[in-house]
């Protein structure tokens, strides 16, 4: 691909995906600085590896997968900043209506539950896409999203009686 064509394609990719990729990064890590770094790194990798992109997944799926890998690598290297009151405000502002309660509740989730929840409920991934991105069986994604929603419901105060799952497992849609 000619350089100018690659540039055009990249700018279109950026215009369509930068906001959701940044949003995913921000809600995942909980602070603006790290989110900008991770989203920028995902986009740089997309730019560099453009010729290798086969279009098997949507660009957003591809970019969010890179952000997720960045996030996990940072965790392993201890490069993740703590989620502070200020950073919660930034996350709360990422919702259409500034929502501190929801932002805090999302950070009370474990990392694994938050990842699956944000991919599926936050970014509209199918469970199958999330499973591929997270490299787990689709039943595990069902379970994690379900567990996350249960926990959020408990935290955010739902009138209904719910039973929390006690351990990670797999859920099948076979009945």
């Amino acid at each position, binding site marked *: 691909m000619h350089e*100018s064509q690659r540039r055009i394609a990249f700018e*279109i990719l*950026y*215009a369509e995906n930068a906001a959701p990729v940044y949003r995913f990064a921000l809600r995942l890590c909980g602070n603006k600085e790290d989110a900008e770094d991770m989203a920028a790194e995902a986009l*740089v990798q997309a730019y560099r590896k453009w010729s290798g992109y086969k279009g098997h997944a949507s660009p957003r799926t591809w970019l969010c997968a890179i952000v997720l890998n960045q996030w996990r690598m940072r965790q392993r290297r201890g490069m993740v900043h703590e989620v502070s009151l200020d950073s919660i405000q930034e996350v709360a502002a*990422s919702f259409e209506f500034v929502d501190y309660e*929801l932002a805090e509740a999302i950070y009370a989730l474990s990392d694994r539950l938050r990842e699956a929840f944000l991919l599926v409920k936050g970014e509209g991934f199918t469970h199958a896409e999330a499973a591929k991105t997270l490299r787990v069986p689709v039943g595990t994604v069902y*379970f994690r999203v379900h567990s996350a929603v249960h926990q959020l419901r408990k935290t955010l105060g739902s009138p209904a009686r719910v039973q929390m799952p006690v351990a990670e497992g797999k859920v099948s*849609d076979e009945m």
Partner: protein
Amino acid sequence: MKCEKIQSLVSPYLSGELSKKSKQTVADHIADCPECRLFVEFHRSLDARLDSNLAVPEGLRRKLDQRILLEPGRKHLLARMLGNPLMKNILISGSAATAIVAIALVLAPGNATASPVKTLASMKSALARAVQSGELTFNASVSDNGTITVTGLLDGQPFPADIPLVVQSQHKGNTYDVKVTADLSPASYSSISYGNDQSTLELIPKDKGNDRLEIRLDPLSLNPISWTSFTKDSEGWKVKDHGGYKPKTTGAPDPSSTATVTAHMRIIVAPHQSASLSIKSNGN
């Protein structure tokens, strides 16, 4: 089936990922179980609460450009061009005619002061406002031998010949249905550069290597003032068409507007006669 099992399937149920049989089982259960209905409502309320209008922060684009521009051999003339504050003024001025200039700039690597995303938004916005203010006109004519000719007027001036104007038509008897699309998306050009000086922009339309469009810019304001299209034959480049700009539209860019305008026209031609039709945008 227990509520817990049903609730664990609510997420794939709502996203339409369950098998037909499982979907029916969940739907039947929800219809009879108030508690599971509440759970479904909570799921849906979360979807609404997670909605977002989050904008891309300036810092992200800056970090991105720094990393891309740091790559060896990446920085070139157009990268420097974007640093020119006068060029930035063009991009946010929003006139219909500046759309073409904006297209030029969206191809160039951005920097902290002129984000290509903003450029793209301005470019789209410029055309949309021209349409909304009734400044875009398509003229279509059908000759007696059935040849269809379409021209465009933007802000009262002839459409630059090399702005892609896609014409699709079909006819039944003497009734011609014509669809015209003006596409000002950045992918329409394969090359953008300055001419001999920074008062001329040169654009080469995609898949038309023998055509070239030059836009003259006012040296002080850098607003576009005229365009000339060229075509190349065995003897070299020759002027094909020429026109001027007289932009009227102003206002803030609207990033949600579109860069493509389509008009549908039906022309009925009497036997062995020619006919023409003009359609002017009315804001719809």
